[in-house]
């Protein structure tokens, strides 16, 4: 039986004449165009994500009577420590992100390239998880602190309400994040992930 693929190979190699031909004049302007690769999209989205969380962590401060009450109770030092941890985490995550981003080389093997892209994207994901965890731990910590040092500030009712609203807020935040992620990264990385899994299978 004729090897079909050999037959295809013969035909494949005859297609040269039918291929488009670009001249140097066509090619020069192409060098000036901007890339629209997945990596570029990931970079833009990641910067936006960092910006949103920086705003949420540092930009929004509670104001008004409640804020001064909270401050009186938990004290300035706790706020300084919290800001310090946030700042340290931000520097760490941005540094890590940059390191991973710089590792992305289009001359690497496809699998290494895909792995590096996924790692870069994961860095931002970890930053977001850190923020959510910090939000939960910070709020719980603040309640515990207030409860132990100034129990008069929290009645049983307000504690219950606070816990419920915290859970609802978190559920909403995680829900919204998951939807955004599914839409954004789901579409952006679907093909990449599928190909990465295919390549991984090849190495088994």
């Amino acid at each position, binding site marked *: 039986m004729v090897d079909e693929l050999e037959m295809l190979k013969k035909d494949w190699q005859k297609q040269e*004449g039918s291929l488009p031909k670009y001249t140097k004049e066509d*090619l020069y302007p192409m060098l000036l165009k901007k890339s*629209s690769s997945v990596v570029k999209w990931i970079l833009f989205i990641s910067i936006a994500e960092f910006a949103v969380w920086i705003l949420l962590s540092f930009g929004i401060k509670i104001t008004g009577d409640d804020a001064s009450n909270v401050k009186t109770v938990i004290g300035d030092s706790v706020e300084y420590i919290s800001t310090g941890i946030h700042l340290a985490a931000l520097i760490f995550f941005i540094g890590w992100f940059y390191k991973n981003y710089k590792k992305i080389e289009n001359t690497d093997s496809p699998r290494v390239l895909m792995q590096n892209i996924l790692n870069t994207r994961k860095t931002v994901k970890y930053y977001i998880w850190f923020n959510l965890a910090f939000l939960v731990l910070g709020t719980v910590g603040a309640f515990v602190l207030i409860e132990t040092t100034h129990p008069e500030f929290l009645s049983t009712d307000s504690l219950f309400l606070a816990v419920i609203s915290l859970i609802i807020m978190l559920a909403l935040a995680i829900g919204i994040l998951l939807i955004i992620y599914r839409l954004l990264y789901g579409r952006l990385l679907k093909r990449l992930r599928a190909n990465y899994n295919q390549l991984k299978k090849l190495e088994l």
Partner: protein
Amino acid sequence: MDKTVEDNFVTLLEENQNIVHKICRLYTNNRDQHNDLFQEITIQLWRAFPKFRGDSKFSTWMYRVGLNTAITLYRKSKRTVQTQDFDSVMFRISSEEYDDTVEQQLKLMYSAVKELNDIDKALVFLYLEDKNYSEISETLGISEVNARVKMNRVKKKLKKILNP
């Protein structure tokens, strides 16, 4: 950027552009996407060019960057319907040299190759480009044994399509 480097790159790209066009033909479904992917591969090649040391052939290096772009980096700007215009989009089928059956078989083969997943397509592409398994494994970063095993599976798959 140094003008000589730019000239040098464009000359090399012009000489070897067929490789990029063939990758585009395999991974896209219409002329717009073809041009789009060609553009993206050109940008990626140009970006990586400072690291091209000349220890491998320019064409070999192009296969790696070109396939990486098609498989991983390229983001289709528009979604296209799967139905393809065979005559304008698919490959040229020489009707003079083949009888109808062969032509029919080739059409079936091409359309079967187009249906393969991105990785299998890359494997078949390098095979059709007459690359040996060592070159295929190097370009795709998989072992030679795995490249052979996978290629055999793809061959069987294609055979089955032709002889159901």
